[in-house]
């Protein structure tokens, strides 16, 4: 097993003669916060789905948490957490029931569920809301809860697909505190986002353009490389080269 959380080499996904993901290669270290940027339609979601074991790559190699994406999808699934851009807890279940359900799906024991559940609720300050239907919580709380639930089984890597869409800046900041906590506890965070301020919070960033990775470095290095004052400018400089139109 490698030290790296994710290793990708020439990973490709082709639909007919359309290269959704075109020979991308990158590594992500254990415990790193890795920003996966790109305009809509650049191929981020397709790449992420391959890494999560949801679809088979057309060619190339990749391993996630040390497991092969072609052969060991089941092992990968056991070692990752996932949170999508859509809010994905059950609205008609209470906070605690959601925790118990997702924890249960990952095979946590009753005792672990109780402990983890209590710990999580205390950490989020949701003691009063534990028995409320998730549907009645404000969006920011839901997103924080969804993230906490996604890492309840202490995965090696958590994939976050635009986790903060539609959330106000203050809550986004709080959300990133949770991400830092997770990274501190050794969980690798693989995050896609459209907010460039969030990109600055990442250890390293890759920018996808037309299915390729056109830039990959720390935010500081990228800004230097593109002689830009902010990540926004870096992103525009790269996105302008795109030939594909957004979906």
């Amino acid at each position, binding site marked *: 097993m490698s030290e790296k959380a994710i290793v990708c080499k020439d990973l490709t996904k082709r639909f007919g003669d359309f290269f959704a993901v075109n020979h991308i290669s990158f590594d992500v270290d254990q415990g790193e916060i890795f920003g996966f940027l790109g305009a809509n339609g650049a191929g981020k979601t397709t790449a992420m789905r391959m890494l*999560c*074991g*949801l*679809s*088979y790559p057309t060619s190339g190699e990749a391993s996630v948490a040390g497991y092969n994406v072609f052969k060991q999808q*089941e092992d990968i*699934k*056991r070692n*990752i957490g*996932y*949170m*999508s*851009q*859509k*809010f*994905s*807890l*059950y*609205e*008609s*279940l209470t906070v605690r*029931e959601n925790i*118990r*359900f*997702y924890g*249960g*799906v*990952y*095979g946590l024991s009753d005792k672990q569920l109780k402990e983890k559940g209590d710990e999580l609720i205390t950490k989020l300050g949701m003691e009063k809301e534990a028995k409320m239907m998730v549907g009645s919580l404000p969006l920011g709380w839901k997103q924080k809860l969804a993230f906490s639930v*996604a890492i309840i089984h202490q995965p090696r890597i958590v*994939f976050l697909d635009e986790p903060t869409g539609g959330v106000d800046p203050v809550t986004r900041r709080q959300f990133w505190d949770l991400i830092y906590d997770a990274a501190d506890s050794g969980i690798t965070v693989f995050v896609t986002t459209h907010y460039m301020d969030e990109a600055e919070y990442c250890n390293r960033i890759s920018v996808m353009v037309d299915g390729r990775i056109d830039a990959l470095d720390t935010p500081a290095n990228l800004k230097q490389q593109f002689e830009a004052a902010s990540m926004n400018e870096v992103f525009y400089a790269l996105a302008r080269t795109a030939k594909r139109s957004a979906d």
Partner: protein
Amino acid sequence: MKQFMVFVRKEFYHVFRDRRTLLILFGLPVMQILLFGYALTTEIKNAEIIVVDHAGDAASQQLTTMIAASKYFDINASDKSDEDIYKAFKKGKVKCAVVFPIGFGNDLLNGEVAQIQIIADASDPNTAKTLTNYLTAITAEYQQQINPTANIPMRIEPVTRMLYNPELNGSMNFVPGVMALVLMIICTTLTSVSIVREKEMGTMEILLVSPFKPTYVVLAKAVPYLALSLIDLIIILLLAVVALNMPIRGSIILLLLESTLFIISCLSLGLLISSVTRSQQTAMMVSMMGMMLPTILFTGFIFPLENMPWPLQFISNLLPSRWFYVIVKAVMLKGLGIGVIWKETLVLAGMTVLLLTISIKSFKTRLS
């Protein structure tokens, strides 16, 4: 296994917290059974009838009394002329008329052929036929009464016996059909909607990224709805027996087993619908409308299949509900055992296996 139970429990939470689901689950069967059982029957009760008695003797009066006493007829008028009959028919209030000719009683007593005329409004042929049948039956009964040992040579007297349903109770035919209909709608709608809801909400994605296998997702969805459908089945049977006086002549165990088979085939159909639809509304429309119409048309409980042209008969053979209907009638009304209905059972089982395989396959491929 524990993961499986966690999932099943979650599914029950969903059902019991959603008023719409509960309404479909428990309101629909009760409503359908009562509606079909009481309101929509082919049985005719209290039809208005005119009696024109030109004979005015004891025999004609006795027969008139018998007609009046039957639950099928209400005597509208009994002292009208022949012309009045046609006026009454034209108004549409009266469905049937009986005319006793002069000398009816004498003819009867002298052993001659005593005739009565029955006139029916055949603009609705089914009603006309049913009413004349009722009247003929009453006349025959009267003959039997006045002359129980009638032994006139060369006289052919048809003795009709209505098997399994001597009272010609309309609900007997409907209940098995409604059972098929209700189970079909409930199972397909609820499974398809509950799976599509997860797709819509984005929770399906989370489940797929989890170590929980897609096949288990399908099964964990099916188990609660199978259990709830069985409860529904019991409600329907109770209503049928208690409220509609339906008999269950065959084995209840057999009935339940056959129903389970049918329910599984409907659940698979629901699953299939869920993998080709994207929104809850579409899934609901497809499973409610798309299933209700063929079930009503081609199951045979409203429109007899025997009279259909062969392409339609062929279509009807493709519906699981058509076979289930035959099975339920055989077990409930005729009290038959598996020895007689094994062929239908085999067809139903074959369809179930086929549907289940196709739906699990399509569910898996749609996801990847």
